């Protein structure tokens, strides 16, 4: 119910059903003082979509500048600000909070819990994002403009930045604190609040992937906090952790940053694996082929993520043993990732498939994300990486895994669960337009970047040799198309469902879907599973 803007009328209905409901605050207090996991999940999702739009506008400014050679729209300093803030906003403002939004909504529903374990901390971890997001966006208006050192914030370039760098560091500290609180909440909820019979190995994979992701977050967010705090003291308090002028080591910054940064990549993809693992069996009308091996594969990826960080640093001049170790370790990740892809395809094999929008996005995810996986394997090979490091090939690679991976899975999840959230079905035709438009424009944007990178066009360039002009123009056209598709998604898919326009969603809109979220009415009432439900032996249904 909570995802519906006009909640007054409906709210009354629920007051009949649920005696507790009259305790819930109304109006703005409902949101500011929210302790309900569904309300907080909705706010997370809206926040992340707003940040997706802001980050998208920055991306389109970048692509507009790169439409043809020469500087037409922005100066090179502003260009660097745009690339930096596009990265920071998309990673910390859009993708991560979106997955936390899904976790808030779905984890209590999927494990049969009444709410998240720490409801008030949940409120705080959301509301901290607002000042952090405002500070990030506001840094454009500070003297000297926004940080322009790249989203990786490499020293010693960060030491040359203006005061907005400090604002950026503060914002990231706040977002880190928010993530850690969110993770603690998720871990405690999953470990302590499962309904009787919902053993760990019967949990939906989305809960499993989030459990593992939450541990990754707790392990690495403090490492990032350390790196940016040392940057801060180097800037203002005379320390020389990374400042070579005082004997500091800029490469040490990169090691610390990527020790955070690589697990961070998996933080942004593991929950996506969880969403896809829910959707493919539902639309193939067949059980997930290897549940146990999926859990093990996810854990292996998480563990490996801690020993591969320096593959981002092959060009720093590591010793030969360092290059070899990180090359081998990185290539190993292909094995558990392959296990996942094979499992999804084996699930589809001899199923009885239909292709509603959630399934389209899940299959699109599988197809395009795997291309990003293969280019990752090529990047992992140190001698080849020497050629493509810091070129557009890398830009193509990580957009294939972050946009076609994480973002597509988020879209798939939205289409899959929004009937439960809003109580109405999205418009299937519009969903299909959104899918095909996004798929085509995504590839028009990012596929040519592989060629640019192989040909040696460095990334973060405001202007480029003219031989690169045609592919850049193509990529810019694709980017605007992709951006428009997301505006379409919001106004023609999301907004109508939030206003309650559309066919009324049944409790179980997908005939093949399994799980406790489908055991409650659509829209999900404000309070669910207030008393632990009695579950069937496979923990997929509520008895009685």
């Amino acid at each position: 119910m909570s995802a519906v803007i006009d909640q007054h009328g409906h709210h009354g209905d629920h007051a009949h059903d649920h005696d507790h409901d009259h305790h819930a605050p109304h109006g703005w207090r409902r949101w500011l003082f929210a302790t309900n996991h569904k309300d907080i999940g909705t706010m997370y999702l809206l926040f992340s979509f707003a940040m997706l739009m802001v980050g998208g506008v920055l991306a389109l400014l970048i692509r507009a500048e790169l439409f043809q050679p020469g500087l037409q729209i922005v100066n090179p300093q502003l260009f660097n600000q745009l690339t930096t803030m596009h990265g920071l906003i998309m990673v910390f403002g859009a993708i991560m909070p979106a997955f936390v939004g899904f976790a808030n909504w779905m984890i209590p529903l999927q494990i049969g819990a009444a709410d998240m374990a720490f409801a008030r901390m949940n409120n705080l971890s959301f509301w901290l994002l607002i000042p952090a997001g405002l500070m990030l966006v506001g840094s454009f208006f500070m003297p000297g403009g926004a940080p322009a050192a790249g989203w990786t914030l490499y020293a010693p370039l960060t030491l040359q930045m203006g005061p907005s760098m400090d604002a950026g560091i503060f914002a990231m500290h706040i977002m880190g604190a928010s993530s850690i609180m969110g993770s603690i909440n998720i871990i405690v909820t999953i470990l302590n609040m499962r309904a009787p019979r919902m053993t760990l190995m019967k949990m939906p994979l989305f809960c499993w992937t989030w459990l593992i992701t939450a541990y990754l977050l707790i392990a690495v967010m403090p490492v990032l906090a350390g790196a940016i705090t040392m940057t801060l003291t180097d800037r203002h308090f005379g320390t020389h952790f990374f400042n070579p002028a005082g004997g500091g080591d800029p490469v040490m910054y990169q090691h610390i940053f990527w020790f955070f940064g690589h697990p961070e990549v998996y933080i942004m993809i593991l929950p996506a694996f969880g969403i896809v693992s829910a959707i493919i069996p539902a639309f193939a009308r067949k059980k997930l082929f290897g549940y146990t091996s999926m859990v093990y594969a996810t854990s292996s990826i998480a563990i490996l993520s801690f020993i591969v960080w320096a593959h981002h640093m092959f060009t720093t001049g590591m010793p030969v043993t360092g290059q070899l170790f990180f090359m081998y370790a990185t290539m190993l990740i292909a094995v558990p990732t392959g296990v996942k892809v094979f499992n999804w395809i084996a699930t589809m094999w001899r199923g009885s498939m239909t292709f509603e929008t959630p399934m389209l996005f899940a299959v699109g995810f599988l197809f395009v994300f795997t291309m990003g996986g293969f280019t990752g394997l090529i990047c992992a090979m140190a001698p080849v990486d020497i050629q493509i490091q810091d070129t557009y090939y890398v830009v193509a690679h990580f957009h294939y895994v972050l946009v076609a991976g994480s973002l597509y899975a988020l879209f798939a999840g939205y289409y899959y669960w929004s009937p439960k959230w809003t109580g109405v079905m999205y418009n299937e035709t519009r969903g299909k337009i959104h899918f095909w438009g996004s798929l085509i424009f995504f590839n028009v944007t990012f596929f040519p970047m592989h060629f640019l990178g192989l040909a040696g066009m460095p990334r973060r360039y405001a202007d480029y040799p003219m031989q690169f002009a045609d592919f850049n123009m193509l990529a810019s056209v694709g980017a605007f198309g992709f951006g428009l598709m997301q505006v379409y998604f919001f106004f023609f898919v999301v907004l109508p469902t939030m206003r309650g326009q559309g066919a009324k969603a049944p409790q179980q809109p997908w005939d093949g879907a399994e799980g406790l979220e489908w055991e409650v009415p659509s829209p999900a009432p404000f309070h669910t599973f207030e008393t632990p439900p009695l579950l069937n032996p496979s923990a997929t249904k509520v008895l009685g």
Partner: protein
Amino acid sequence: MAVNSLPGGPAVNQLDLHPPVTQIAADQRWLHYFMLVICTVIFVAVFGVMFYSIFKHRKSKGAVSANFHESVKVEIAWTVVPLLIVIGMALPATKTVVAMKDTSSADLTIKATGIQWKWGYDYLKGEGEGIGFVSTLDLTHREMSNSGKPPATDNYLLKVDNPLVVPVDKKIRIITTANDVIHAFMVPAFGIKQDAIPGFVRDTWFRAEKTGDFYGQCAELCGKEHAYMPIHVKVLSAADYTAWVDGKKKEMAALADDPAKEWKLDELVARGEKVYAANCAACHQASGKGAGPIKPLDGAAVVLDADKLKQIQVLLNGQNNGAMPAWKQLSDTEIAAVITYTKNNWSNKTGQLVQPADVVAARK
């Protein structure tokens, strides 16, 4: 007026790595093809299965879902087989990694210093030892970029005043370092990319098998003018290289400035104009008016100030956290000349004269 491919640089709509000019680059290209073929075959096979399933196992075609799941044998198979494939991929790469990192017994050692935003080259060891110069993007290209409508130019943003010159078929070791922030020395045709890190020295090497001109660009974000610090390597035959070394040494001897020399105002201004064009005009503009966040010099207080030391300190140490970088790598004469030029050009008519000796004193 279309753009043509640039030999040694990017080709128009190039789809692949650069044609290799060194053994390492050839190995990298082979490895890339090798990976590309294996990945494509696996991709087509796996997604062939998926699309077959998508077309055959549809509910609309009356497919009824089977009920098989969990098979330890299958899971082991699709864990072990990819593991073997990955090992097969890593083995040939290992040889190239070892070869890339072997910078021993070089014929010529050159230090490449990344400077915001240009490259300094110093010939440290081998034929040409002692030669040193700075390589900067041609100013007209920077202006073309700013104009927003650059005319079709094959070497757009790749033309420098002083290319790095090396002999063919010799092992050249490049030592990288930087003055300010991290840069990266990249020449795709040679298969090299090495970060230039301030406070640290790193190295890489190449042995060019062909004479000609080869191009690269800075590959690590280094601030505002990151896109405007290209690398141009000229590979000459042994005889041509010897001739170039002789010419360069004579030129340097003639240019060597005695920092004790007393200069006249017009001499210094004339010299300073060149230094300004090569180093300052990219940001402060030929008009001295600056642009956007870049401060103007025309009418600037620190330029007009009677205390000459103030401006000398700005040039030696930089200002605003390096937004104005330090220029201590310029010679005493160059710094004196460019300051004198700014103090006596545009509307600045101070008549002040800064001698190299003033800079020498300020450096202490």
